[in-house]
């Protein structure tokens, strides 16, 4: 990785330099002030830099060299499913017939786009055991929000207005309670039992006619499958609540078990996790939301329908929660997910989950001697360790993560789930080879040794990165959120 400091793009600016990319004006020109009143016009200049094309290319190339992607190396970031992003999916998503299509073109001129959306809806429904999807949500959290709106709208339609609370496990992703609050629900937390699943007695106690539903990830954030899922579904449904499936961990179950068959009523998927679309450094993602039959009328509108040889948008959906985004969702991302499903097929998808689970269990077995394993049972696609043994030598999970950087790895997710002290969550995904896993395992064992014998190696890490540990407290205390010097 590039260690040399890269100036900010504004610091590279040279007055008078330009790329001059645009043609001369070829129409009869009018005075600007004849078109726009003087007092609407900008007087000051913008801060944009003055650069040549090569300046720009080098600058952003240098920035890229300070980044680490899945193509750079192993990225076992738990709950994020950092699998390989197939190049062919990138390529087909950039076909002119997908990329250069305007969302308001006449329906007869976008039949290919509509067909793709329609079929993706059907495939995702099949994979999850649901009856219909909306591809509109732009991210997992956005899908959660839409799904919870559907739950709320459903209860309201039934005149069931007392249902103002959503139950969320103490192991849940932070977005779960945040999304519930966004939609106006009160959040009630249910604790986990000693095996890492939902505490059934605690759940029973919480159920009442005020409960709108339960949000659950299964396998959960401990990487464990909740064996009581049948019972949980029964308890929630008997009390009139609905079950929401957070699909963040769906990479463990494709072709093996379906949320719809587990009793879930609403599910969101992260196409940027399970369906291999790249994360883009934080986005764009795509978080389709799927539902069981009785909830289909509540899906965001429009949805794509097919009739008489033609695909079309159906806007006439009186019970729909409405729109949650402009147009129809993050279309290019959906194209990549569609391509992924088509290249793997039913068998390929199942093999993905099998290999993902195998890889995670392999790491678990190989490392549990060296790092505390709070739940020693078969895991699914990810495994949660604790750095508490190393804590005794004065090093934390953060230090372990930073030391991994020196060995050229992206560290696992750390300090999550919250119910495990000094947690680190390893999700290898199916696209890693045994050789990669073995190397990683060896490095982790080496780090465990260093923690005991040379803890300063961890405390001073990383040394081998573009910058050393950054002062995050200072950034928050005295926020500098834009460049001002010299502008």
């Amino acid at each position, binding site marked *: 990785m590039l260690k040399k400091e890269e100036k900010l*793009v504004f610091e590279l600016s040279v007055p008078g330099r330009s*790329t001059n*990319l645009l043609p001369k004006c*070829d129409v009869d020109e009018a005075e600007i002030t004849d078109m*726009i009143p003087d*007092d*609407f016009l*900008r007087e000051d200049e*913008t801060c944009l830099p003055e650069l040549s094309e090569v300046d720009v290319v080098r600058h*952003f190339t240098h*920035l*890229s060299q300070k*980044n*680490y992607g899945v*193509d750079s190396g192993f*990225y076992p970031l738990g709950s994020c499913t950092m699998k390989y*992003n197939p190049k062919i999916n990138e390529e*087909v998503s950039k076909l*002119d017939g997908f990329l250069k*299509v*305007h*969302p308001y073109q006449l329906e007869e001129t976008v039949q290919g*786009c509509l067909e793709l959306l329609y079929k993706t809806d059907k495939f995702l429904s*099949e994979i999850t055991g649901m009856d219909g999807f909306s591809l509109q949500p732009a991210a*997992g959290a956005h899908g959660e929000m839409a799904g919870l709106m559907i739950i709320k709208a459903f209860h309201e339609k039934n005149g069931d207005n007392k249902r103002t609370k959503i139950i969320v496990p103490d192991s849940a992703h932070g977005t779960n*309670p*945040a999304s519930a*609050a966004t939609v106006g629900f009160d959040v009630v937390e249910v604790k986990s039992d000693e095996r890492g699943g939902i505490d059934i007695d605690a759940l029973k106690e919480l159920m009442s006619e005020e409960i709108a539903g339960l949000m659950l990830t299964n396998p959960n954030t401990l990487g*464990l499958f909740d*064996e009581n899922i049948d019972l949980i579904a029964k308890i929630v449904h008997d009390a009139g609540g609905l079950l929401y499936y957070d699909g963040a961990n769906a990479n463990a179950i494709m*072709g*093996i*078990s379906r949320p719809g068959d587990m009793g879930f009523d609403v599910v969101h998927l992260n196409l940027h996790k399970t369906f291999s679309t790249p994360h883009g*450094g*934080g986005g*764009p*993602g795509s978080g389709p939301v799927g539902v069981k039959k009785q909830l289909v009328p509540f899906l965001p509108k429009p949805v794509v329908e097919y009739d008489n040889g033609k695909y079309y948008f159906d806007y006439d959906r009186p019970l729909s929660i409405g*729109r949650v985004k402009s147009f129809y969702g993050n279309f*290019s*991302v959906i194209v990549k997910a569609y391509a992924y499903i088509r290249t793997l097929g039913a068998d390929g*998808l199942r093999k993905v989950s099998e290999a993902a*689970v195998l890889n995670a*269990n*392999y790491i678990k077995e*190989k490392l549990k001697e060296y790092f505390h394993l709070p739940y020693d049972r*078969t895991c699914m696609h990810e495994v949660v360790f604790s750095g508490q043994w190393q804590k005794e030598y004065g090093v934390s999970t953060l230090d372990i993560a930073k030391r991994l950087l020196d060995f050229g790895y992206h560290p696992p*997710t750390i300090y999550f789930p919250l119910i495990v002290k000094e947690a680190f969550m390893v999700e290898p995904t199916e*696209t890693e*080879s*045994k050789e990669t896993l073995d190397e990683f395992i060896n490095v982790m064992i080496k780090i465990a040794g260093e923690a005991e014998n040379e803890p300063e190696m961890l405390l001073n890490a990383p040394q081998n*990165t*573009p*910058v*050393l540990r*950054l002062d995050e407290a200072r*950034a*928050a205390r005295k926020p500098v*959120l*834009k*460049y001002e010097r010299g502008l």
Partner: protein
Amino acid sequence: MSYIPTTDEQQQKMLADIGVNSIDELFADIPESVKLKTGLNIPKAMSELELTAHMQEMAGKNINLDKYTCFLGAGAYDHFIPSVVTNLLSRQEFYTAYTPYQPEISQGTLQAIFEYQTMICSLTGMDVSNASLYDGATALAEAASMVCEATRRNEIIAIRSIHPESREVMSTYAKFKGMTLIECGIQDGVTDLQNLKELLNDNTAAVLVQSPNFFGAIENIKEIAEIAHENKSLLVVSCDPVSLAILKAPGDIGADIVVGEGQVLGNPVSFGGPYLGFMAAKKEFTRRMPGRIVGETVDRDGKRGYVLTLQTREQHIRREKATSNICSNQALNALAATIYLSVMGKNGLKKAAELCLQKAHYAYRKLIETNLFSPAFESPFFKEFLLIYHGDADKLNKHLLEKNIIGGFATERFYPEFKGGYLVAVTEKRTRDEIDRLVSEVVSAC
């Protein structure tokens, strides 16, 4: 196809090391009752060659803007995208990375976002920008929640000239968050100031306005700001960032929060997404902002670096008390915007804006001269304008399509009050020849 590198033999070895006999044993925790008994009903796998042919066939069913001349806008625009943007975005270090949780190996993403935030602040005239949101519509909806929290009032006045889909998104958010959304009418294609004054009350958190608005018309932000502020309400402005190269920054004329659709900054129309929503605000709203924010700091050697900051606003720390549930940004689209703004530069963006302005006005004059249209309004406009077509707009567009032209947007679906409403967008990409061809085809269509 398969992206799984472990061989059968290796898998057997791994199973043995784990101490189980088969992969099925690893799934023993899943009760039989919920296990899938048959395979998924998904078509069998395609090879790369088959997939390519299949996708090309599907893409071929769409007409695209490379082969057709586009005068359609209405929220998504066919602007010029420098080849540099596309080229740099394809670097794997950018597009295959996750959210920059480990700043030491994410300085590329973080510094680019810091540069993005600086550019957005400068264009909008604001103190602080976040790292971007899902799109322009959700950015406006998030701003609506923000102002309600900030003012402890729960009524929002949204002008009818805001993009109808943005108003729909806001209405969805408002319904579930307990906010009241009130619509203010329009006069001559812009805010009806009299109506606005009547609607403002003690419970009005903010006025939300778009400029240039859905009709392309430029709103009088300064006057709206004065009216809103007199009522101790805030002003949220949604704007087109390209227009800001020549129009006053909303922050300099009274806006408290500025949002907008960033697609126009180097992102293809892509059948509606992914785009990016930008959001910038005055300093006092910093800690109320949703989404990621990047800040400058130093490392242990005192070297300058960048981190995600002010995270106590966010869901992974605050859970249900977070300012929003958003835990990502449209990083790659924001990167496209940053590269676009860097390569266009100060003068290039201004030139693009001026070309849009000149060409749109040329097209406007020529179309009016045909006597087949009349102006809908007299308000000043930027790159898009509403006309009243005297014939059948759908028929016109079908005729244009046969001539390889994607015509304007027939607005009656959203604004039945303007019968024959026809919204035409003209970006810097359109040439005089193309505009003249549109005009002559419009004439031959009737």
